[in-house]
């Protein structure tokens, strides 16, 4: 089997996006029109969610016989695909596992899988949100979850923008720098919390 370059992941993602775009093209237009109408109510986001829920795309997903379950199952599977390798990288940053290998190696092997999983999680998550935006908007767990995802993203961004830039200095050094350990621990904690918030959110729906 030939050795693929790392950006090979872009192709299946683009293909999936294209197929999804073709399948959902007419309902997608109604999505845009919902976004462009100027809301007049007290809560702009709430109004917009209500309008989104009335679109044909939302109704189609919500009332579909299998599609919703398919998307939800994909959301969970992709979550595992994303967090399994991410956990390995976090543990290397803390200095618990894979300590025989340089951080750059662990990162270059596991991060592409995590990123591919992340794209699927976001796509399926968006579809799930579109299917019942009002329920999501009114759920406090959903708001907590979004904040936690933002924090996790911020954690990753700060790590890659600061400590990871100087990786060549500590690639093989043990113990790893405090910043890397903090980023690893925060990553593990935040994603665990995201899973908790996501599951508890679903309990409030039914």
């Amino acid at each position, binding site marked *: *089997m030939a*050795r*693929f370059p790392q950006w090979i992941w872009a192709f299946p993602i683009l293909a999936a996006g294209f197929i999804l775009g073709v399948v959902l093209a007419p309902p997608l237009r109604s999505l845009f029109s919902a976004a462009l109408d100027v809301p007049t109510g007290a809560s702009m986001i709430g109004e917009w969610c209500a309008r989104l829920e009335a679109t044909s795309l939302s109704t189609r997903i919500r009332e579909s016989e299998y599609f919703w*379950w398919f998307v*939800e*199952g994909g959301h*969970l*599977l992709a*979550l*595992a*695909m*994303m*967090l*399994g*390798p991410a*956990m*390995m990288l976090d543990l290397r940053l803390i200095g618990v*596992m*894979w300590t025989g*290998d340089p951080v750059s*190696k662990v990162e*270059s*092997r*596991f991060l592409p*899988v995590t990123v591919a999983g992340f794209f699927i999680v976001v796509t399926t998550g968006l579809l799930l949100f579109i299917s019942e935006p009002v329920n999501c908007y009114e759920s406090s767990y959903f708001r907590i979850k979004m904040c936690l995802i933002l924090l996790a993203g911020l954690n990753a961004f700060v790590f890659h923008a600061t400590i990871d830039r100087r990786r060549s200095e500590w690639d093989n050094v043990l113990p790893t720098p405090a910043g890397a350990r903090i980023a690893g621990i925060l990553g593990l904690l935040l994603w*665990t919390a995201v*899973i*908790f918030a996501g*599951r*508890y959110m679903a*309990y409030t729906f039914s």
Partner: protein
Amino acid sequence: MIWFSLFKLFPGMKSFIQWCDATSIGTYVRQAAWAFKFIETIHILAWVVLLGTTMIVNLRLLGILRGWSVEQIANRVGMFIHVSLAMVAVTGILMFLSNPERYYANIAFGPKILYFSIAVVYQLTLYRYVVRSTRRGIPAWVRLAGGFSLALWFVVGAFGRAIGAV
């Protein structure tokens, strides 16, 4: 026969189910407001770790993840697979005890247990042989075995999710 309930398959287990229903742990999980939600979330969390780590080994077998030998990856990740497997089993049993009659009759619970049993047996026996046979390159049948394991755990997860849907 994709969907089947354990009730249809083993109708004689009725008394055992009633005994499960009467256990003090089951009663507690059923009645405490926090217990079931918390246990189910831990169940999902452990399952995510289980699938994520088995996926790492399988992606290595399929040739997508590179850099280490299959045995190295399997040895390092093995601890996670076994611990999360134990956690999934314990939380799963607790959830079962909370409402055994429901799961006994559920048509997604039957196939889930069937495929879970196959997956566990496969993971603990044949899979080790597969991993060991990769010392001199990865033959095609080993890739197939990796894909089979991946598909098996996917199916277990899908049926598990379906328990709440049917």
